[in-house]
């Protein structure tokens, strides 16, 4: 009834998992920290929008400022001392961590003895977790490429000139939601799942559930066209392709509606060039395809949507 806490402790106390335990605290903390600043700015923005006279005289930061105060500080010593302090604290932290916890060293590499589960380094566990839902060419190659390209595209597709150089939520709702869903909900959560939940055979074990090496997973996953009883190969291919196409159209339409929700986002939308709109939508739809495929697998036990002789999706 109380579960196997020893198992949980075994997973948590693996030295290489310590960074993920740290991540569990650091990422929520800094998310909160950033949003606290954002709301502070949002309150000021609301205040200034309501009072145009104040907007003309205010120094437009939520931090205290009085006339006569220096606007600029000398880097030496006011910034240097912070950097020095940060370096000292970080060094102490690293030293203490290194003295108290040893880096892992398993037995010598042995190609004949497969580790079960054999996991990638923790920062790639998101990609490994994706392997459950997609074939390796998508999870291991296309998706990482898309993540890199997508991240680099952000400054060029974000046509919103507001919120440049200060925390705000109100002025950038859409982009902040898009980023946080990608980084927190997809990337970080997948890492946590890959670390704490995936056991032998990459099977799902809830925290405190004992890792059973003899557990068998009788997969009853089927391809989408089999559910609809399509047996002809070419027909099935056409059907799968049209479902994928339909996903793009529906998701694209939903994304479009989302961009049209508020007056402000409509205004931003109008500033975008056609190329920006197409790039933004393509990237967001492709990002959405991960939760979509996850839902298809977990809720309907669908293995592939599109089956071709060359690749499956």
């Amino acid at each position, binding site marked *: 009834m109380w579960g196997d806490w020893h198992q949980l402790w075994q997973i948590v106390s693996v030295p290489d998992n310590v960074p993920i335990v740290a991540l569990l605290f650091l990422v929520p903390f800094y998310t909160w920290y950033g949003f606290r600043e954002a709301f502070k700015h949002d309150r000021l923005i609301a205040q200034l929008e309501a009072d145009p006279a104040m907007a003309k005289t205010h120094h437009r930061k939520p931090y205290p400022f009085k006339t006569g105060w220096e606007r600029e500080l000398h880097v030496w010593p006011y910034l240097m001392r912070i950097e020095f302090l940060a370096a000292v604290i970080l060094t102490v932290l*690293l030293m203490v961590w290194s003295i108290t916890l040893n880096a892992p060293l398993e037995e010598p590499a042995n190609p004949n003895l497969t580790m079960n589960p054999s996991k990638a380094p923790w920062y790639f566990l998101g990609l490994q977790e994706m392997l459950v839902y997609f074939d390796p060419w998508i999870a291991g190659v296309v998706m990482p490429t898309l993540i890199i390209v997508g991240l680099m595209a952000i400054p060029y597709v974000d046509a919103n000139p507001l919120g440049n150089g200060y925390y705000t939520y109100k002025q950038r709702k859409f982009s902040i939601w898009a980023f946080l869903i990608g980084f927190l909900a997809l990337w970080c959560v997948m890492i946590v799942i890959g670390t704490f939940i995936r056991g032998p055979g990459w099977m799902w074990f809830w925290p405190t559930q004992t890792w059973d090496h003899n557990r068998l997973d009788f997969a009853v996953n089927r391809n989408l066209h089999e559910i609809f009883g399509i047996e002809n190969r070419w027909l099935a291919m056409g059907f799968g392709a049209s479902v994928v196409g339909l996903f793009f159209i529906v998701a694209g339409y939903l994304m479009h509606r989302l961009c049209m929700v508020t007056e402000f986002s409509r205004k931003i939308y109008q500033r975008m060039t056609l190329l920006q709109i197409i790039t933004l939508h393509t990237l967001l739809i492709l990002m959405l395809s991960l939760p979509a495929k996850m839902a298809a697998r977990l809720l309907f036990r669908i293995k592939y949507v599109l089956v071709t002789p060359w690749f499956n999706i």
Partner: protein
Amino acid sequence: MPDEKENGAGKRTGLLTTVKETVKQDLAGLKPALLEKGKEELDALKEPEKTQLFRSIFRVKRDETPRSRALSVLTNVFFHLHPAKINRDAVRYSYTWGMGGMSFYLFLVLTITGVLLMFYYHPTKGQAYRDILYLHHDVPFGQLLRNMHRWGAHLMIIAVWLHMMRVFLTGSYKRPREFNWCVGVILMVLTMLLSFTGYLLPDDQLGFWAVTVGTNMARATPLLGHEGPFGPQLGMTAFNDVRFALLGGSIVDANALLRAYIWHCIAIPLIASVFMGVHFWRVRKDGGISGPAPVMLESEMKEEKKGPRPVILRPSGTR
């Protein structure tokens, strides 16, 4: 002839006495002066910043005038990455989170510990694992060295991610910093690749299977992998595809170890250093740290300007 000899010898004795006496006289005269001089120089050492040695290194007077404070940043090769002055709010931790600086500091720590580890490590099968054991059990502070390298690497990845999150949440990737964001994304990828290539080096089960899992994905690269879409049609086999290029073979073995070692210790650090140089330089050239900027109101949004924009919007150091 004998006379001459005697005379000569006599002269020499005379010379010695003269020299002795002169030196004695000199010393007697010098004694108080030497003491005084020595005391004077010792006193001068109490203010080392006035010595020639110190001035030749630092060149700037150490006092609290604005000029000296500015110069101490500008005349130091390590400090001159910074501007002389910054906005009073830019030092707020709640704005910067300090993650970019910490990433760079961790990179330095990893370079130092990494170089020290290289003294004890042979990237060859059979020897590599023994070198780790040697580090653990025989090298003074060897275990600590390896621990610091590994935990530092993990910390650096977390710091880089949080740095990216901060830059996103403050909208700092917006004009004129678009390109520097891209450089940052590349640096993040390089950071993870650095860590990944280092994972194999202990040559233990953990690294071996992690790298096996990781590189197996390369098999499935479209067009370039022998199990990827259209790979076989293009003549890809396990012995000529992109995975073979990564591993220097069809399995994770001695060649893979050597390649990981060279990527980890030489190639990627070099590439990353170049990108870091660009990254830091662009921070300055794009107008310094992005904020905290004064908030902009929706009513103040301007029409998008068409046409080319100036390359450097604000000269560095001015705001």
